């Protein structure tokens, strides 16, 4: 078994990008388009919309809080079996949901079961992607994450069509079949043995070392702050526009425009992240600061042209910060600990995500408009970018090659046999 000193940066890595693309589409695209089902559930179960929306909330919460589980299992067994199991769980959840007779049934099947499935797929895949690339990591991540945006475009009309032809039970059955493709995506994740793997040890040891790792903790705090402010515009932009007197159709159209500029931002930032020398954390800080400033400017803009310009800019910068956010982590903790690292970050940042939207809603109820919400969102983002400055090598000119270098020489000396990452890897 040969341990690579360097990630391949291409070759099979592009198949992993493809797999990650479809996975982000199937996990987050489905979650985002689930709103189409809500109307049907409200009518079918005769429950208020608030109770029905808990289905998605539980699903997202389980996906994020369960990320460390996915990470730990991937470290032990490799990403492939974990992601394939996750795919089966996600599909099973949807399948059982099609037989639901009450809302609780849906909470358990879609929320808990599918949520756990998603927890086992998304984080290991992105971590695996980070291991396959080093020089082109940001670009690969950016390309993979475009799956989220594109699938939201495609799935919403698709789900509506399914509902029109099969009603919600049949539609859930077919969405379950769609989610089975996660298993196929998982099959594409060929295990990769990198040189630092034997050194970093098993998952327990990794988590302990991560929790004592200063830069990692600071990064986690920064990401959590960013996450708190990040989702607020998505949730409240349309409502804010309606408050200003916009009609629903132009408001929805503006959201689509934001989605397009988000896509462009992801790819552009991914390319930029690799092209610019130096730590990627600087670019993350740049995009986060810009997003924060734009959000703070929202209350000032009243003119339609100003709002459109701000929304396009917001879409671009918020999309731009996603791939670099994922790319910073391997630079901090090394590709050996990436699974556990990413899992922990996802779990902690979810707190921010869960708090952000209700906080914004509360501010709106108290103040009467969205000014305070947007400004606070911007403030969270700026705070997050401020914490990013404290990361190591922030002001260096050249790329950080810190830990992995030393780990490689150690690893090749000791040649510790590793229990996981089966046979026949590249």
């Amino acid at each position, binding site marked *: 078994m*040969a341990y690579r*000193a360097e990630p391949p940066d291409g070759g099979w890595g592009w198949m992993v990008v493809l797999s990650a693309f479809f996975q982000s589409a199937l996990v987050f695209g489905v979650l985002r388009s689930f709103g189409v089902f809500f109307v049907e559930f409200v009518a079918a179960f005769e429950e208020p919309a608030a109770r029905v929306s808990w289905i998605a909330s539980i699903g997202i919460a389980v996906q994020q809080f369960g990320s460390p589980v996915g990470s730990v299992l991937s470290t032990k067994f490799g990403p492939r079996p974990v992601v394939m199991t996750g795919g089966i769980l996600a599909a099973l959840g949807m399948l059982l949901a099609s037989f639901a007779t009450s809302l609780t049934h849906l909470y358990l099947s879609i929320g808990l079961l599918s949520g756990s499935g998603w927890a086992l797929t998304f984080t290991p895949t992105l971590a695996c992607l980070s291991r396959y690339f080093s020089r082109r990591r940001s670009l690969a991540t950016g390309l993979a994450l475009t799956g989220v945006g594109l699938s939201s475009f495609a799935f919403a009309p698709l789900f509506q069509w399914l509902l029109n032809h*099969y009603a919600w039970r049949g539609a859930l059955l077919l969405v379950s079949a769609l989610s089975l493709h996660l298993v196929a995506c998982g*099959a594409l994740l060929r295990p990769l043995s990198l040189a630092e793997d034997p050194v970093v040890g098993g998952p327990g040891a990794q988590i302990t070392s991560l929790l004592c790792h200063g830069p990692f903790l600071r990064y986690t705090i920064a990401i959590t702050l960013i996450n708190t402010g990040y989702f607020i515009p998505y949730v409240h932009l349309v409502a804010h526009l309606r408050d200003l007197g916009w009609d629903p159709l132009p408001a929805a159209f503006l959201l689509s425009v934001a989605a397009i500029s988000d896509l462009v931002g992801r790819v552009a930032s991914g390319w930029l992240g690799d092209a610019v020398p130096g730590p990627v954390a600087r670019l993350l800080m740049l995009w986060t600061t810009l997003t924060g400033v734009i959000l703070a400017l929202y209350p000032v803009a009243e003119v339609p042209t100003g709002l459109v310009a701000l929304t396009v800019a917001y879409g671009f910068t918020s999309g731009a910060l996603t791939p670099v956010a994922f790319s910073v982590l391997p630079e901090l903790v090394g590709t050996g600990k990436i699974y556990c690292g990413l899992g922990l970050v996802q779990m902690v940042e979810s707190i921010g995500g869960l708090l952000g939207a209700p906080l914004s809603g509360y501010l709106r109820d108290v103040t009467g408009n969205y000014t305070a919400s947007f400004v606070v969102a911007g403030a969270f983002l700026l705070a997050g970018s401020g914490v990013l400055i404290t990361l190591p090598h922030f002001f260096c000119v050249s790329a950080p090659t810190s830990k992995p270098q030393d780990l490689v*020489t150690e690893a090749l000396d000791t040649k510790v046999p590793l229990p996981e990452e089966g046979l026949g890897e590249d």
Partner: protein
Amino acid sequence: MRTKAAPITSLPVREEMTTKYSNLTLESHSISMTAMPMKENNKGNQICVDRGIMLQRNVTLERPNMPAEKNITLERPSNVELTCQFTPSGNLNSVNVTWKKGDKLLEDNYLVNATGSILYTQYRVAVINSKQMGSYSCFFGEKKQQRGTFNLKVPEINGKNKPLITYVGDSVVLICKCQDCLPLNWTWYTGNGSVQVPIGVPVNDKYVISGKHANETKLKITQLSEDDQGTYWCHAIFELGESEGHVELVVLSYLVPLKAFCAIAAEVVLLVAIILLFEKYTQKKKKPSDDGKEIEQGEQLKLDDSNGIENSGPRHRKNESVGQ
């Protein structure tokens, strides 16, 4: 001002009728029209063929006589007052005013009045049952006859435009409702082509008609089977007539989506098999040459290790020696 053809004052004959129904609500509606002026304007050159001779001149195509129409929704008996006002282009006196219900000319019950250059005519009718519903039109006869129409209708019922999809064995609730109306009664029919068969006549468990508020009705059908597929009509009965809406029901068997599910699941299994087999195949091709490479790598690395300090800078050099 006087006109030639219409009586001016209100009508004594019908007054008793109006007082008899004076406890009913009064509804007033009006339409206003203006005559289109026949002026020349420079909007485009039109080629006119007049008796075989081609002429070219600037003309305004006379705007087509756009019918002014108003829909009036009536639920319960009321006194209705319909007013048409008209601004003629020429002389007020030359205008001929008539009223029609449908095609039938109305003799009385209306008055004509004029202030300044505007001509008013008003028709009053006590609507007590469905016979008085329909289309009432006022006609102003000038060079070109102008027409205003009032359509008296019962409230519309909304069923569902999209067909309802259900599965065998399920139960479904069909809902018909109307906006602000309170019908006297609701009835349901199932449509078989053009024949409508009433539902719920022998009261059984399968069909349950209910409705929380007066402005809606719900038909619950249990134990659905494929025979229950089709169009269902809901009739709302008012004092002034009947109105209907419809809902289409489609009953599918579970096999329909299940077949699609199995097809997609089979496709996924196939994909996974292809991916894993492809991997096994490419590894088999590598295996024989791999062993040799590994030994080389081991030796190479030992050599590099001794130069560790010098090689700490450029990583790409090490990459090349380790090999792919």
